[in-house]
């Protein structure tokens, strides 16, 4: 896949394949192309050259086939700040045709049952991240695209959300992380991006990341 922003190549001929149920850790410095890769896989960006297939659907032409089977936890929480956590999740549940009972179960699971009616703008970053995680997994997606999923979370919160977005979720996961050790620990495959190019593509045990952050 190749993607440009104006003259700049954000993603330069990246090729990879990820088996169902496994986890890809995407590492790299700021501006390396990690978010661009995630947005292409989420069907939100078109590659300017090359092709991508997610769950067997060719993107972007067949994106409609996999929307609703992908969960995206982006850098921004994708939540309306004036609405409460519960209202935000109800809105997304209606779009995805998910039962309301699922919302309550998720809020309880991430420890937000009692604060679910507060506007998102009044929540701390960590609590907002928990709501964003609930939104991303609301429809039980088969593919999880996670951009710094544990950012702003305390250890207890990390433990609470692990069954939803961790390996235990059973989903095929693409995880962007700046925590190299944490990223490697969760991964079956590591993609190291530098200047939009795939510098490293290997299992964690054999991945040489020494040149990635220079």
């Amino acid at each position, binding site marked *: 896949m190749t993607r440009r922003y104006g003259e700049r190549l954000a993603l330069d001929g990246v090729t990879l394949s990820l088996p169902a149920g496994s986890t890809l850790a995407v590492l790299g410095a700021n501006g390396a192309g990690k978010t661009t890769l995630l947005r292409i896989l989420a069907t939100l960006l078109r590659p300017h050259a090359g092709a991508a297939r997610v769950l067997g659907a060719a993107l972007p032409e067949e994106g409609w086939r996999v929307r*609703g089977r992908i969960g995206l936890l982006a850098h921004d929480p994708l939540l309306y*700040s004036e609405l409460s956590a519960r209202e935000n999740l109800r809105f997304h549940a209606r*779009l995805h045709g998910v039962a309301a009972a699922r919302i309550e179960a998720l809020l309880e699971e991430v420890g937000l049952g009692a604060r679910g009616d507060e506007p998102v703008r009044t929540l701390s970053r960590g609590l907002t991240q928990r709501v964003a995680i609930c939104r991303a997994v609301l429809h039980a997606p088969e593919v999880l695209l996670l951009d710094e999923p544990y950012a702003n979370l305390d250890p207890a919160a990390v433990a609470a959300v692990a069954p939803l977005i961790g390996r235990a979720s059973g989903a095929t996961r693409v995880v962007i992380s700046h925590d190299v050790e944490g990223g490697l620990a969760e991964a079956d495959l590591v993609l190291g991006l530098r200047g939009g190019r795939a510098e490293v593509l290997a299992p964690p045990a054999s991945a040489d990341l020494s040149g990635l952050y220079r």
Partner: protein
Amino acid sequence: MTRAVAALLRKDLQLELRTRESVPAMVLFSVSTFVLFRFALDRERLEGDLAAGVLWVTLLFASVLGINRLFVTEREQGGFDAFLLAPVDRTAMFVAKALLLFGFLSAVELVAVSVYSVLLLGPSPFQAFPGLPLVLALANAGVAVVGTLVGALAVQTRARDLIVPLLALPLLLPIVIAGAEATAPLLAEGGAEALPGRWLAILGLYDVVFGLIAYAVFDFLLED
């Protein structure tokens, strides 16, 4: 698609009730403009062509404020991305936003026409019933369709506040012309005259043509 439209509408109404960013601003703008016209024209009572012209110019500029705000929350808070990830027809967003704008315009007109009748309008607004609501509804449909299209286009640019009036005002000119021509006989001194069917037909035709254009191109505006 009905489910998605209902979800989007409900969410947008909740947001408007919380933030009160659009309708109150449009109402205040309309009232301020009527006051300005009163002093600028140095007239206490308007009727006929002049009354219709002042009403439609005011409503048109007020609608620009609503168009400007229509997609701002989606852009600034990631609503576009969240919507595009859902397994729903993308046209649902166009339909929901057009219905929302139609509703906003109707609410604004309810207040604005009442204030207009107190501040400036010579003839009683009741003489214009039921013709005036019909003209307003047809015009609102056109403004809602074109406004949604222009709003979706403009919000992707940095110069949103500039793009909306530059694109919307010329596109909405036929509405102002037809709306004013259809309204003028209803606001005539000495009693309302017959509603001119020709101008109503033009408003209806405008709604259909731009509705089809918007339906055809809206999906492309949501793509990167």
